[in-house]
């Protein structure tokens, strides 16, 4: 008889070869965990190699999930449970495990050859070296192949469902619901019924194995965490950032222009915004990082909202153009989705080490507001806020650098679309209290999107004139007005100003006492004459 034990938190790490589907397994377990209402945080960790050699330590891909019945902030340091699909996954992750941790290992891949590949002289599942842990050595692959035998798949195809078997087992062990994953599999493999049925069968078999085996004497339950009421969805930091940029541009009534050069882990922003062309978003994949920010600045000069997204090495290359944006007083939003390490660094690993670069990386005096997101969901708000600052900063509609910190990278998390703005809490401590419901009803994302009228209608011009000559006659050349259909104002009217509270922490930290850029020549004027006269005229 299995006992049910209530615990308040657990950290699980799924680890396997790159092709074993560990990210998908982790994603699904996370979704089911969300459905229960636990609070959680996740850490995907995958190799930089696109197709790393099978069975090697370099090829290990893992997904860590921390969930609890209370408010948590990190994906956890030491996994309580490790699911290891091969010897490499065990070896790569063993040192992170605390004494007494549970190891679920797939014995099928613990062959002499695979063990030798990662330097094991003997099978650690059998030589007693794992005495400090609770080891469940199970032939997950063998049981999976048996469970899906009815569907007529080849052995290799059949064994590929082993991640769903493992997921089923863990789903049972931690009392997760099964409907979500079954629906997901039905959707994902709708066009491949054989694969769909095999995966669902493997998932159910894993669950049933947990129920019937006597290997596990305890089954766990973790109660729901107290969460603010509202509608929730799953979102990654990069997606939230993309949506936030779109929301900011939409609220300002401006077209969004992203100039970007592919770089992990920021490329998702380029991908996401490239899907949004019907939302008035232009994306430009430039020849290099410098061209990417240059094009964004050129677009800002033309009245669009210029944005560039990159990672640390790209920010280093963009610095000169960022300081030009400061000097020209043009809006520009720079997204630094941080990777780890200096020089090229480690693209698939995350770190929070770019703060000095974004604060002080420019030569001369070129102060830039710097914002840091504190969670994937917060990336939405931070992006909206970055846009607002870039467009509204008094006297210097200059650039603004939301530093998407750790959670924005490949890590995933959850965006509460109903959540209230953390910065609506006046004079709160430096760490925004995202998990605490604020008393202000005005700063939530949902209400933010539902705000009053956008600025004066500005039709989007997709015109492709036959030549570069303006179609209108030169009526009054003394008035510096561009006869563009949406150039009436590059800045949104004040009525469009979102009610998001000022981020006091950058005003006091990043811009305190900063000298305002001045403009002293006729060059650098924005070609939107009426709203901003050229500097020569304004003195």
């Amino acid at each position, binding site marked *: 008889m299995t006992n049910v034990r209530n615990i308040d938190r657990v950290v699980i790490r799924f680890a396997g070869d790159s092709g074993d589907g560990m990210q998908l397994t982790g994603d699904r377990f996370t979704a089911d965990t969300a459905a229960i209402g636990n609070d959680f945080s996740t850490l995907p960790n995958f190799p930089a190699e696109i197709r790393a050699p099978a069975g090697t330590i370099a090829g290990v891909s893992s997904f860590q999930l921390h969930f609890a019945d209370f408010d948590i902030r990190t994906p956890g340091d030491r996994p309580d449970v490790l699911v290891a699909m091969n010897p490499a996954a065990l070896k790569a992750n063993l040192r992170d495990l605390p004494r007494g941790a549970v190891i679920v290992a797939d014995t099928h891949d613990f062959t002499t050859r695979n063990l030798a590949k990662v330097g094991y002289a003997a099978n650690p599942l059998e030589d007693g070296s794992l005495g400090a842990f609770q080891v469940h050595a199970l032939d997950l692959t063998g049981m999976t192949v048996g469970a899906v035998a009815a569907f007529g798949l080849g052995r290799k195809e059949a064994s590929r469902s082993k991640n769903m078997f493992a997921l089923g087992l863990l789903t049972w062990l931690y009392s997760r619901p099964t409907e979500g994953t079954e629906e997901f599999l039905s959707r994902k493999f709708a066009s491949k019924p054989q694969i769909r049925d095999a995966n669902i069968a493997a998932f159910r078999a894993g669950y049933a194995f947990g129920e019937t085996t006597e290997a596990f004497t305890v089954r766990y339950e973790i109660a729901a965490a107290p969460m603010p009421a509202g509608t929730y*969805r799953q979102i990654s930091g990069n997606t939230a950032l993309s949506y936030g940029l779109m929301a900011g541009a939409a609220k300002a009534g401006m077209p969004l222009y992203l100039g970007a050069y592919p770089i992990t882990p920021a490329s998702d922003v380029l991908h996401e915004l490239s899907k949004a062309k019907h939302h008035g978003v232009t994306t430009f994949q430039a020849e290099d990082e410098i061209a990417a920010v240059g094009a964004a600045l050129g677009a800002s000069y033309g009245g669009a909202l210029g944005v560039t997204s990159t990672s640390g090495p790209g920010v280093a290359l963009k610095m000169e153009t960022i300081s030009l944006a400061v000097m020209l007083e043009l809006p520009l939003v720079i997204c630094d989705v941080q990777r780890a390490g200096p020089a090229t660094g480690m693209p698939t690993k995350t770190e929070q080490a770019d703060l000095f670069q974004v604060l002080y990386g420019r030569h001369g005096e070129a102060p830039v507001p710097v914002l840091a997101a504190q969670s994937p969901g917060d990336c939405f708000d931070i992006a909206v806020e970055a846009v607002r600052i870039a467009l509204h900063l008094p006297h210097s509609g200059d650039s603004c650098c939301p530093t998407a910190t750790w959670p924005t990278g490949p890590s995933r998390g959850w965006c509460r679309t109903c959540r209230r703005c953390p910065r609506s809490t006046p004079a709160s401590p430096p760490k925004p209290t995202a998990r605490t419901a604020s008393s202000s009803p005005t700063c939530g994302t949902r209400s933010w*999107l539902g705000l009053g009228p956008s600025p004066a209608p500005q039709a989007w011009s997709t015109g492709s004139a036959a030549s570069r000559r303006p179609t209108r006659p030169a009526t009054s050349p003394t008035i510096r007005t561009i006869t563009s259909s949406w150039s009436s104002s590059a800045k949104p009217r004040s009525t469009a100003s979102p009610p998001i509270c000022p981020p006091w922490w950058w005003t006091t930290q990043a811009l305190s006492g900063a000298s305002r850029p001045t403009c002293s020549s006729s060059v650098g004027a924005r070609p939107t004459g009426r709203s901003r006269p050229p500097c020569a005229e304004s003195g």
Partner: protein
Amino acid sequence: MTTVNRKEFVSDQEVRWCPGCGDYAVLAAFQSLMPQLGIKRENTVIVSGIGCSSRFPYYVDSYGLHSIHGRAPAIATGLATTRPDLAVWVVTGDGDALSIGGNHLIHALRRNVNITIMLFNNRIYGLTKGQYSPTSEVGKVTKSTPAGSVDTPFNPLSLALGAEATFVARTVDSNRAHLTEVLTAAIAHRGASLVEIYQNCPIFNDGAFDDLKAGPGLIPLRHGEPITFGPDQSQGVVRSADGSVRVVDVAQVGLEAILVHDAHASDPSQAFAISRLTDSGVLRQAPIGIFRNVERPAFDDAMRAQVSMPAPEERLAALQALVSGQDTWTVA
């Protein structure tokens, strides 16, 4: 309707090029040309990089950006893709466009962004007071190469043609009529236009083009006409068996054997061959005129065609649907 005159393109800024600089001639030609084209100054943007030539936007009373070294084509790309109603010019030099900004130049050309690039080539770094440039001849003695430079120079037009440019031309600062004619054709071309302008630096590379201008070395190209030049058009260009072109006496081969220039040929091979008639050392011979002028969809037109903007009242609703996604759950 008021007519636009030259003065409206003259800014109140004091022109600060050295006395005798070839840039003055280009500026004057530009300021005269613009009213003739009927382009309003408020629809004109001049983006420059860094260098002597890049002071150009200060002196034209239009919109302009004196940006950063080498990056003008990138900034102009963002502007041109955003604003179809603007005539976007890029003013650059041999160092700015071919050295630090070489990457942006070739990519703007191959994309065929709707910009017009004026490349002032004086074959020297002027603003940094006299170092050799990517177009300086081998053996050039400068402050940074006291023993003579050992770098092989670029042929800017060969480079542009290799980069899939759709409009490639060359002119000289001292021939106002030719300068105006080439720039007029360049701005009329929809897509990226590159105009190399031979421009004398009287301080650091004076006389770099004297041998060319004094002698019979300028080879004018006119579409549809045989390529002849020199006194009494006595010299001409013929195609060799290996596909290259060479200079011959017309009397020896007969006028019918002379190559007829075709700027609209879809294949750039002949234009490239003609570009190779340019001396890479001391300039004694160089073709001028429009080497290549072909139609290809402009990058910014194609880019804008993919983008649409919902009506303002629908925009937030569409975005809300996107943000909500398909998979949500509710906590009561």
